[in-house]
């Protein structure tokens, strides 16, 4: 190993990170409820998000039951079906995945991984969670208001979203928009924290190129979210005005059931631009943290440095930037100027190149590795399979003319579930199994974890892979019942039953996961500080679980990048980031 510049570095003046003043909780309430400790906030975020996730999972069961056995369940009316799909979609995308990756993983891992005591603005961080919780409560409240939640589809397209042909037009849509605005306000408080902490709160020696990819992924995603969410905010305010104050931002002259509405002059396509200006980056807001986390899981459990670290960093940044220039690919058949199609198809397919390079680097990290098939590693492998599958079908939908027959069909549903549903959720599970020992001090149960993995991975694949072919055939999405369609053979109904059965099985398997988390909290084998023998700073804390302030007496000093696994000549197959260089024994 060459270490040419080391002498120069030694000579560099060392100033920097003086110990920040830390807030100290004075009571049980400020320690565990209104806590300003990022680790507690992370757990609050995660538990809230997982709870909402379970509700959204049950909603997906109800939808699948209706699709497989139309007419068998009296309580699933067309209205409630559309309410289920809307609440399922919006909850999963915004309130579960975004909150889990940024509020959950971000809060827990950023301060620990960069070597900080806490987030830089702990009070705003606490507010962030409580506003998020309020947003979730408002969202959940729509189930109980007159008319129920909105059934406008998660894209909330006007004019339909605020017209009486759509369920939840009275209260549901209003509360949905309010809840989204709250979420965005809360997220902004947290998001500013994550970014400033990464940029300003790093321990001495933690250069940007020494950051673990998890931090890179979360940082980039947070910056994107901070810039993209305002588009949704603007749209939500305008739609609220349209619904409550009679403006016509999104409302052209409309005749509803023979009656002329009082609106006129507005542009429904404007909402679509605003929504997708947020909506497409949102896909990567979920994907980039998953990319980062999965890189660290693969590297740690294959005992090998992540292959092509620099390329991985550049790819994250490039993907993040490009994702702001592709939103139009959701609108190829919206009636916007068709020449935009050329531009958006090109930008969309270009993103495939850095994304593919990331995939290659993951599998090349496995190559000549020392692969431990632990539960987190299994989930990481499952992620690669489902992400590659879903990413490749994205090449169909991004290629404008191929999107023409496939848009609005079950192919789209299958694609985005595979790529931003199943794949990131597998990473969430992998991440939870990986960091659970740090959070609780105990290992999760291996057998239950493997059971959970196999049923979830194979089951989810069995749900969504065949679903593409329904869409290829032309089966449209968002149909409460297919009814008679000349071009749909009866065998499609059998396929729908199969998919539903798989969905029920996968859903039940999540109980194994919940049980494992709770059981291991009390009965898990004690983990010790660094059970995976990992290099990154969070595993080097003096206590496990890390105490308030993370680092005890003195902040860590960072001497190396995050991936010194299996370094030739070293005694162990990992060198923690805060381990000073040995007396130079390794002239490789």
């Amino acid at each position, binding site marked *: 190993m060459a270490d040419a510049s080391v002498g120069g570095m030694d000579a560099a003046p060392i100033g920097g990170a003086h110990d920040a003043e830390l807030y100290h909780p004075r009571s049980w309430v400020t320690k565990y409820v209104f806590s300003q400790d990022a680790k507690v906030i992370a757990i609050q975020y995660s538990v809230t998000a997982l709870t909402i996730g379970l509700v959204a999972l049950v909603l997906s069961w109800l939808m699948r039951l209706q699709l497989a056995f139309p007419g068998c369940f009296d309580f699933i009316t067309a209205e409630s079906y559309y309410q289920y799909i809307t609440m399922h979609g919006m909850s999963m995308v915004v309130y579960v995945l975004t909150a889990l990756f940024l509020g959950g993983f971000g809060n827990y891992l950023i301060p620990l991984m960069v070597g900080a005591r806490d987030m830089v603005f702990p009070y705003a961080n606490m507010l962030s969670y409580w506003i998020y919780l309020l947003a979730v409560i408002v969202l959940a409240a729509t189930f109980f208001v007159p008319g129920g939640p909105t059934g406008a589809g998660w894209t909330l*397209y006007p004019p339909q979203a605020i017209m009486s042909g759509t369920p939840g037009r009275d209260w549901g849509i209003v509360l949905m928009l309010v809840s989204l605005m709250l979420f965005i306000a809360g997220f902004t408080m947290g998001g500013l924290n994550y970014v400033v902490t990464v940029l300003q709160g790093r321990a001495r020696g933690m250069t940007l190129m020494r950051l673990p990819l998890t931090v890179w992924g979360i940082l980039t995603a947070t910056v994107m979210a901070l810039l993209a969410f305002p588009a949704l905010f603007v749209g939500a305010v305008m739609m609220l005005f349209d619904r409550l104050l009679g403006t016509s931002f999104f409302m052209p002259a409309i005749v509803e059931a023979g009656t002329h509405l009082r609106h006129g002059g507005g542009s429904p396509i404007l909402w679509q631009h605003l929504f997708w200006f947020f909506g497409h980056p949102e896909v990567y807001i979920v994907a980039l943290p998953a990319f980062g986390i999965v890189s660290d899981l693969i590297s740690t459990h294959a005992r090998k440095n992540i292959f*092509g670290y620099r390329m991985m960093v550049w790819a994250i940044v490039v993907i993040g930037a490009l994702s702001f220039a592709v939103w139009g690919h959701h609108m190829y058949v919206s*009636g916007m100027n068709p020449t935009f199609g050329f531009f958006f198809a090109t930008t969309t397919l270009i993103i495939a190149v850095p994304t593919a*390079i990331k995939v290659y680097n993951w599998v090349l990290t496995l190559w000549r590795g020392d692969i431990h098939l632990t539960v987190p590693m299994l989930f990481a492998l499952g992620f690669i399979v489902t992400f590659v599958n879903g990413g490749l079908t994205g090449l169909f939908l991004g290629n404008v*003319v*191929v999107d023409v027959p496939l848009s609005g069909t079950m192919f789209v549903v299958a694609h985005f579930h595979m790529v931003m549903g199943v794949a990131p959720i597998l990473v969430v599970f992998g991440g939870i199994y990986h960091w659970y020992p740090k959070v609780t001090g105990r290992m999760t149960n291996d057998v239950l974890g493997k059971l959970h993995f196999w049923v979830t991975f194979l089951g989810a694949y069995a749900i969504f892979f065949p679903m593409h072919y329904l869409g290829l055939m*032309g089966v449209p999405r968002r149909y409460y019942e297919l009814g008679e369609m000349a071009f749909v053979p009866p065998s499609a109904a059998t396929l729908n039953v199969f998919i539903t059965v798989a969905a029920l099985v996968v859903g039940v398997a999540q109980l194994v996961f919940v049980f494992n988390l709770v059981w291991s909290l009390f009965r898990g084998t004690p983990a010790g500080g660094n059970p995976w023998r990992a290099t990154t700073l969070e595993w080097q804390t003096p206590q496990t679980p890390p105490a308030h302030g993370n680092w005890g007496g003195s902040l860590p000093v960072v001497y190396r990048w995050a991936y010194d696994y299996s370094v030739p000549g070293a005694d162990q*197959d990992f060198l923690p980031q805060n381990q000073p260089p040995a007396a130079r024994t390794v002239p490789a």
Partner: protein
Amino acid sequence: MPVALVLVAVALGSVLFHVLSPWWFTPIASNWQYIDGTIIVTFWITGIAFTAVVLFMAYCILRFRHQDGRRAAYEPESKRLEWWLGAITAVGVAAMLAPGLAVWGQFVTVPSGASEFEAVGQQWQWSFRLPGPGGRLGTSDARFISAENPLGLNPGDPNGRDNVLIVADDLHLPVGRPVKALLRSVDVVHNFYVPEFRAKMDLMPGLVSYFWFTPTRIGTFEILCAGFCGVGHPQMRGNIVIEPEADYRAWLQKQQSFAQSSPQGQASNAR
């Protein structure tokens, strides 16, 4: 070993499912076989990529699984390998994008001889309008809609008075002639979708969108709404009958024009 085998099974199973399953495009009935062609090119390229990545993973797991004494290789990066893989990917992407953009170019260029028809969506039915002997569609606006003027034709526009209106009934079109579909909605976003034609486009309230196609097969095809439009979305169906020119002419003779069906159309007639 079992993990590697399962991955192999996933890769090969996916390919087998693709080849053997009965679910595939419904037979085409328009000129857009190029779209099907682009999809098949895309299937080949993406299929190869998927199988290659998953099989490679399976191999790595089999070959480099942890055993006592094994130590991973130390290999921070290989710029050459990464650039090569990136370049190959770029070529593959270009091989999908180029035909895609070429066909899109055709899709957005309406041939000059195309005849026009208008499809009007409302919750939850389809209506249509065809030009009359004058050959032109009159202007329209949702504001003109009334019981006597269900499609909102401009009563002041003389071009509209001979337009043929088909309210909530089947549309007929002649086989083998390119047609331009003008799409208009009077309430929410709908989407005109005939799976056999491959093409589809939204009906965006407040503006008129369009696409074109040439029906190539005689028969009756179902029009679906593919843009979520409220609780009646699945019931929003229509029929489009593709028939020989002579049958089409005979059918057209029997339809009523705006002037014949509405006092407003006569008003404009008198002017």
